[in-house]
């Protein structure tokens, strides 16, 4: 949900922020690095890098095991990270935060654990055409295993979800699995409306919030979903750590996903009992340093202020879409909702008939990093009638000069493909 504040959020000081990201100082092809692929993975500020380095330099030991001091300190840091994440997204308690490897793992955890326990062949799962494969393939696989039905919300021509038949589509469903922010189109589906409709129909709601939590103030109590998965590396944190949030009673009912150490209470020859939530879902040694790094990323984002982060993203996205249209007019196609609609900081585009791979190569020559391809959203690509797009995506360290570099470089493709 968007935070509604009366005062305008303070503008980000991007020049100062850039200095916190050492990688932005490097040159590519003799040009300054213009990193516009944060939807794939964001860069990391020094406080995150230093927190992890400091942890390894001073504190590392396995968690929840040793009685010695550094083991206790490591455990405290790991659990403090959980509490920080819980507070950051408005979870009711730290125990609702399960550390995963990434957003994909969190969704697979729900499909495997909740899905295999709860779904019968007559049941229905609803997802959408605009999903990342991470929130699509688990439901395809579950359908193969459980024989349940799968329904889809469709893409509307304006780049939003077609919700005209929402009540009908979710009717009788057990689960609605939907993106909170499209990784290709930047679409921000109306979460409250989706959650209310699903709940009215008796369905639970899972949100793929990988592109949402990093950029938009998140209050899970206000959104009201049942499962929310997101990842650390897209929100200035390290790779290898993600979060699955779920309401506590759901986590308690669900069987373990991965099994082994850490998730166990007792093991006998005739069976086992599992640990309490959330540790029941954290088999094996968890990503400790990564959790510490992610907590530092949360500190960094909170210091900027998520309302300011969101305002920056909106303004820069609108600036980019308008600049691209102004320079290239009908030669450029921008996908997704209009610039003045609710939108995440993601701009997918096609330029003339230049293939996205070739565009990305041309942009790389100018030091501009964008993603090219199907963005792990092949059903959506088929809806759009394209095999691939180029995608620029923004984070707190991007400014209008970065967008200008993109806009200037796109036209260079004419030299080769014009």
């Amino acid at each position, binding site marked *: 949900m968007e935070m509604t504040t009366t005062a305008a959020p303070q503008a980000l000081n991007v020049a100062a922020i850039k200095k916190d990201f050492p990688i932005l100082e490097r040159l590519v092809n003799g040009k300054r690095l213009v990193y516009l692929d944060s939807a794939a993975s964001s860069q990391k500020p020094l406080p995150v890098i230093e927190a992890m380095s400091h942890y390894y330099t001073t504190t590392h030991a396995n968690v929840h095991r040793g009685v010695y001091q550094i083991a206790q300190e490591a455990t405290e840091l790991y659990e403090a990270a959980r509490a920080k994440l819980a507070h950051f997204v408005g979870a009711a308690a730290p125990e609702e935060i399960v550390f995963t490897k990434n957003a994909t793992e969190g969704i697979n955890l729900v499909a495997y654990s909740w899905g295999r326990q709860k779904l019968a062949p007559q049941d229905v799962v609803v997802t959408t055409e605009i999903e990342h494969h991470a929130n699509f393939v688990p439901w395809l696989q579950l359908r193969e295993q459980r024989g349940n039905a799968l329904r889809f919300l469709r893409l509307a021509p304006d780049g939003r979800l077609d919700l005209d038949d929402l009540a009908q589509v979710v009717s009788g469903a057990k689960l609605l699995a939907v993106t909170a922010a499209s990784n290709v189109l930047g679409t921000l589906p109306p979460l409250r409306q989706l959650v209310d409709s699903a709940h009215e129909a008796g369905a639970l709601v899972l949100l793929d919030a990988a592109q949402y939590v990093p950029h938009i103030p998140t209050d899970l109590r206000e959104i009201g979903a049942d499962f929310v998965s997101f990842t650390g590396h897209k929100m200035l944190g390290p790779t290898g750590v993600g979060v699955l949030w779920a309401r506590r009673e759901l986590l308690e009912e669900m069987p373990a996903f991965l099994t082994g150490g850490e998730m166990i209470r007792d093991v006998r020859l005739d069976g086992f009992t599992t640990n309490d939530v959330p540790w029941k879902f954290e088999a094996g040694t968890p990503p400790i340093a990564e959790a510490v790094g992610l907590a530092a990323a949360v500190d960094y984002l909170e210091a900027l202020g998520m309302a300011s982060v969101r305002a920056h993203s909106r303004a820069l996205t609108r600036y980019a879409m308008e600049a691209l249209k102004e320079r290239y007019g009908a030669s450029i196609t921008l996908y997704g909702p209009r610039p003045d609609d609710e939108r995440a900081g993601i701009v997918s585009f096609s330029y003339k008939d230049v*293939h*996205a*791979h070739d565009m990305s190569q041309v942009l790389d020559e100018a030091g501009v990093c964008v993603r090219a*391809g199907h963005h792990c959203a*092949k059903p959506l690509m088929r809806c759009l009638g394209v095999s*691939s797009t180029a995608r620029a995506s923004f984070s707190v360290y991007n400014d209008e000069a970065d967008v200008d570099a993109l806009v200037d470089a796109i036209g260079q493709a004419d030299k080769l493909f014009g």
Partner: protein
Amino acid sequence: MPGLEDLYREIILDHYRNPRNRGELESPPALRAEGFNPLCGDEVVVYLAIGPDGVIKDLKVSGQGCSISQSSASMMSAAVKGKTLAQARATIRAFRAMMSLHGQQLDGAGDGAAATGEPDEDARSASELAAEEGIALGDLEALQGVVKFPVRIKCATLSWHTLAQALDEAERALS
């Protein structure tokens, strides 16, 4: 750092703008093989019409992709059309050798004589291999620059994988 001109040679852009042997053949009787690049979503379909004498009478390529994958497919079609299956295999071997710098190689379907991906197997040895096999790489040599852009090697090799699959089928059909 190699520049764009190493990648986008004029001959490559010409094949991209004016692809040779573009289209489809009725299948059957033509053999049809599909190739996908899961990284970027590119796809290519190769149609082969083989005469009773084992000569590739006709060959068409359809699908869509970037300039490198499309031009490579076009060059490939020109290089093997009218050739025997054995000559087509030899051309694939020579092309594989050219693309195997940095230990990259064509894997997956195809003949058992794939390039081994020896790290020291460079473009020169590819030309030598081609000469030994009596193959003229011709336009294909323009694709040598692709090996300097490792991410794009898969673009260049997509249609060749697909051709190798189609040849596998052709040989099964003939045997």
